[in-house]
């Protein structure tokens, strides 16, 4: 039997303590640790709220959110338009929040279904409630006007982008089989309507109505597969135009 195993665990532990190998951590270490976890959880919650609401804002502003009302082709457009990187970011933030929350008994005592439900609720509040309060338009204007780092590239990137097949705009004139619209960048565009064009919310449209058109755009204009009215103000429009070159 070697020297080490001859000694009792008590002796070995006290030796480490007396020898200074084991030192009691100060109280502030634990206070700081708790504070960091709380701050981390708050930051992650805010990040989830912000990114989830931003995804919804982008989808509504680009018109993609309304595309499924035109049927199966519209569902494909919506799926192609979802900023999946941001969705993944929300999922990652959610997982990190779950990990942080599990340090507290209120979270680890409950089944994952409930705590994950809490994170999902945050995503839903961020995705559906915040856009209705109208936080993003004013936030976007502030970000663009004050050149806020990290956030400005977000608005620029996703404000410029948009699925090629879906076109939001405002009607400026109506003729037989043709709508004249101003797209979200203020450009005049002609929309050609055919007998096969779908009007899921009805055909009665007038000047000033804000609409979303599903269809291919070429040099002449847009051949409408479907047209619907939306209750959306195009925030990615005039203000963004001041800051970025128009889309081709």
């Amino acid at each position, binding site marked *: 039997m070697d020297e080490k195993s001859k000694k009792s665990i008590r002796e070995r*532990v006290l030796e480490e*303590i007396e020898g200074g190998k*084991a030192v009691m951590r100060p109280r502030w270490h*634990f206070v700081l640790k708790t504070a960091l976890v709380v701050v981390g959880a708050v930051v992650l919650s805010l990040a989830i709220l912000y990114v989830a609401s931003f995804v919804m804002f982008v989808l509504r502003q680009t018109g993609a959110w309304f595309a499924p009302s035109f049927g199966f082709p519209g569902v494909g457009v919506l799926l192609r338009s979802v900023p999946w990187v941001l969705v993944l970011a929300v999922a990652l933030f959610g997982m990190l929040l779950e990990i942080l929350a599990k340090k507290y008994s209120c979270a*680890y005592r409950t*089944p994952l*279904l409930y705590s994950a439900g809490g994170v999902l609720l945050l995503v839903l509040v961020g995705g559906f409630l915040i856009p209705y309060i109208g936080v993003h338009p004013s936030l976007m204007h502030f970000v663009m006007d004050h050149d806020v780092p990290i956030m400005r590239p977000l608005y620029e990137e996703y404000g410029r982008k948009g699925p090629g097949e879906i076109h939001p705009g405002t009607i400026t004139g109506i003729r037989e089989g043709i709508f004249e619209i101003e797209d979200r960048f203020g450009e005049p565009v002609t929309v050609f309507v055919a007998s096969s064009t779908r009007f899921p919310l009805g055909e009665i449209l007038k000047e000033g109505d804000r609409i979303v058109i599903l269809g291919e755009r070429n040099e002449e204009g847009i051949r409408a597969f479907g047209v619907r009215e939306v209750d959306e103000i195009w925030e990615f429009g005039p203000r963004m135009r001041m800051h970025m070159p128009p889309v081709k």
Partner: protein
Amino acid sequence: MDTRTDEEIVEGVKQGDKELFGVLVERYEGKMLRYARRFLFDEDESRDLAQNVFVKAYMNIRGFDEKKRFSPWIYRIAHNEFVNGLKKKSRDPVRFFDPDLIFPHPVAEGSLEEDMDRNVMRGILDRNFKALELKYREPLSLHYFEEMEYRQIAEVLRIPVSTVGVRILRGKKLLKKMLEQNHG
């Protein structure tokens, strides 16, 4: 023999009485070694890991809230230490995700107590625990050998109380099945 509670002793250690920590080590030494063996560590490994548990407990003792019980707190440190020890030792990955943690389950504390006496259960566990998965072995061990209630086990393992109930029940069923196979 010191008649103070663990929590009172912790208070003394926090005040700077290093020797007093030895009392806690004496009180929990046997328990920690027994708990370590349930993780299938040999004698030397168990002693080294138990020593690490006490060293870590001492280092983090200012983070312990005396309003709570000391026992689940030190078992939590031991659980982490032993799981890490197992990860280093074993080539098999220790599973951290368990479907039992997802859904709520009704708590059925002691529902099989009627047909299995506690001492009989200990004997069966002792003879067969190596054949059980760690996720069943650990709560069964804490319940039958460390005499913890489901709520305390939940604190140690940081899982819902209902999941502790499910794991203990399944562990018992598995043991029962093993017994039937051995005798049948």
